[in-house]
């Protein structure tokens, strides 16, 4: 099999996460062939591949061309990481005109106003969200696809994987991402805006296990995606209100301040943007 990797608009963390798997990856690639990979081999062009791991979203004209070329020449494409799947952090906001309209006269790629997820410009077969996805998750997914099976898809939320216990009672909201909460107490109950209840699991709740909030890097959970009645914001408000024993409106008012923070990764996700009740921050 020919395997390729490509990183478009991203921090490079997804490729790093893959490389961190170490010898099992090197052995797997040695048994197959690397068709192209900016991190691994000296090939300067995209070549036909059986499987391509594509990280990053599309933010400029060069990335758009690369994405389309990968789409034309590959049998299966796996979108790796939340930038590829949802648009990720680069999709948090539109860039100002002075950035998008400058510096293209010397052959630099032209910047697009908005970053877009990969499936807006090419066909994607499988999705592995995360910022970055855990190393083993990427490698296991690659192995599954090599064997002809779809990768395992986590259907639970981060909360379901977290060992902390929710406590009932009024919540005093804090900006801080994690301090002063006992190791077995739910961070949300402790006043930290943890997105665990509305975020897809599969990360073994690595952040909350170390006392820090979930920032939603694996994107909306299946429940949030399941119907027009749900959204990350409204579901979290409902959950927090029921835990605190107060009306939804009271919590909603308090959490407006964090609206942008709730969509750090999924703001450009077309499904999220189609939600009629969704409260996605304006640019």
């Amino acid at each position, binding site marked *: 099999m020919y395997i390729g990797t490509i990183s478009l608009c991203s921090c490079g963390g997804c490729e790093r996460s893959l490389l961190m798997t170490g010898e099992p990856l090197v052995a797997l690639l040695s048994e197959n062939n690397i068709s192209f990979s900016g991190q691994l081999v000296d090939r300067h062009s995209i070549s036909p591949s059986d499987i391509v791991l594509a990280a990053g979203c599309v933010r400029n004209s060069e990335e758009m061309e690369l994405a389309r070329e990968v789409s034309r020449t590959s049998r299966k494409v796996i979108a790796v990481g939340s930038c590829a799947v949802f648009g990720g952090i680069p999709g948090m906001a539109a860039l100002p005109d002075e950035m998008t309209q400058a510096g293209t006269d010397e052959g630099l790629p032209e910047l697009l106003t908005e970053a877009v997820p990969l499936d807006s410009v090419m066909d994607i077969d499988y999705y592995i969200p995360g910022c970055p996805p*855990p190393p083993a998750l990427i490698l296991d997914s690659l192995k599954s696809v090599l064997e002809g099976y779809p990768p395992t898809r986590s259907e639970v939320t981060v909360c379901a994987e977290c060992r902390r216990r929710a406590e009932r009672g009024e919540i005093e909201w804090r900006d801080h*991402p994690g301090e002063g909460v006992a190791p077995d107490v739910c961070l949300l109950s402790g006043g930290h805006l943890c997105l665990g209840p509305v975020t897809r699991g599969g990360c073994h709740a690595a952040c909350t296990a170390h006392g820090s909030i979930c920032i939603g890097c694996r994107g909306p959970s299946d429940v949030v995606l399941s119907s027009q009645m749900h959204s990350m914001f409204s579901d979290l408000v409902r959950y927090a209100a029921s835990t605190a024993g107060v009306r939804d409106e009271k919590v909603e008012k308090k959490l407006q301040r964090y609206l942008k923070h709730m969509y750090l990764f999924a703001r450009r996700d077309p499904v999220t943007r189609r939600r009629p009740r969704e409260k996605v921050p304006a640019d």
Partner: protein
Amino acid sequence: MPDEFDAEKLRIYPVTRIDGRADIEVLFASDGKVSGARFRGLEVRGLEHLVHGLPALRAPQVVSRACGACGPFHQLASCMALEKAADCVVPEQAARLREAVCWLNYGADHLMNITYHELPDYALPMSAVAVRNVTGMYMVQQEAIAGLTGAICAFRDAASALAGMPVHPSAIVPGGVASMPDERAVERAVEALKSFEGDIREAIRLSEMLMKRDAKVMDSFPMQGSMAVLTSGGDPSPIGDTVTMKAFASPSDTVEMTPDDFYSSIVKEPVTWSYLVPVAAGDSRPLLVGPLARLNTGFVVDTPLARLESDRVREQWGEVLDRPLFNFMALMIEAARAWEKSISLLSEGPFVGEGAARIELSGSTGMAIVDSPRGLLLHKLKLGKGSTISSYEIISPLQFNHDMLNESLSKGALEAVDGLDMDDAISGRLELLVRSFNPCVPCGTH
């Protein structure tokens, strides 16, 4: 490099075995001779713009995504800038944990660069493109690659046990750390690290042997200009309090300054041909930051293996290691130092007490510098209404190294390129020079 190029260009695109997407342009003067070469960052995300309006205490988790290679250092620098703005003192044990996490990430990052990016150039210099990579190495040196990747995994596992996800560790928060690891987690981390002592020593011997065998190293051009590192008590440290600078030409004359003075001396010099904004610090041009600059500064204390190896390297190649290709050896020695430092910090006893100090944002600005695996990294933020971010500035290692890299690349191109034919050997040689500066393009252009 001349300012204007009006003739043809040759392009090497993309530069491979680096982090991010970039190209090299070789430029010709009107008489058809090579006039210079330049490394161009082709991507930008606008991270400094994206964080506007976020609650300031939430910014570190976002700006850590500036870079997949040194994300923990972006997160740390951002937290430290906030702590500066709040005049907050991090609890001692939390500071120790943060430093240990820094060293673990140094180790992982350096070994990944060695294994996946640089080693094939030295171990398989004459091989075909299809073979000159980690899988080609695995065919002929399976044990060595297994040892190196095993060490990467051990650094990764130790960092994960202490701070969460390995690439963007969530445990580093404003005021300290979100939680203290229990004794078992620390024991597991130390055990994992100690398990690859033999691999580290063998990897150093392998690197030394490859450097000795490779004539390119001493044939390459010496660098001119200055080096800058962050030090603590004269010793290079990721979380130091002094910026130490010295010139390649007179290494015994050092200039020390506070991070604030260093920041004040920084001048941004944007170019229209790259998304990367080069910076200069004062009169020290060009500037080198990163592993080779730190190795040239010298290790003062408590890492006997790294100290011994750096002395051996100097005995062989001279007191000042001024060729870019020495970076390969610098990465290896510093990986050994990271291994020693992290074991030493984790063996100091259990992590007890408060993880994070209470942080009340009172000041309107904060700035911090850390020395990341790739070199000096600076974060500066301004607070607006309701303690939200009103402006954010990141200056990353590649921005400092940009001019030094392009100067070396130009010299390399003048020597190697003849006419408009660009074969694999020439492009490979120029790309090798680029790799010697550990460029991280996503971090550089953010």
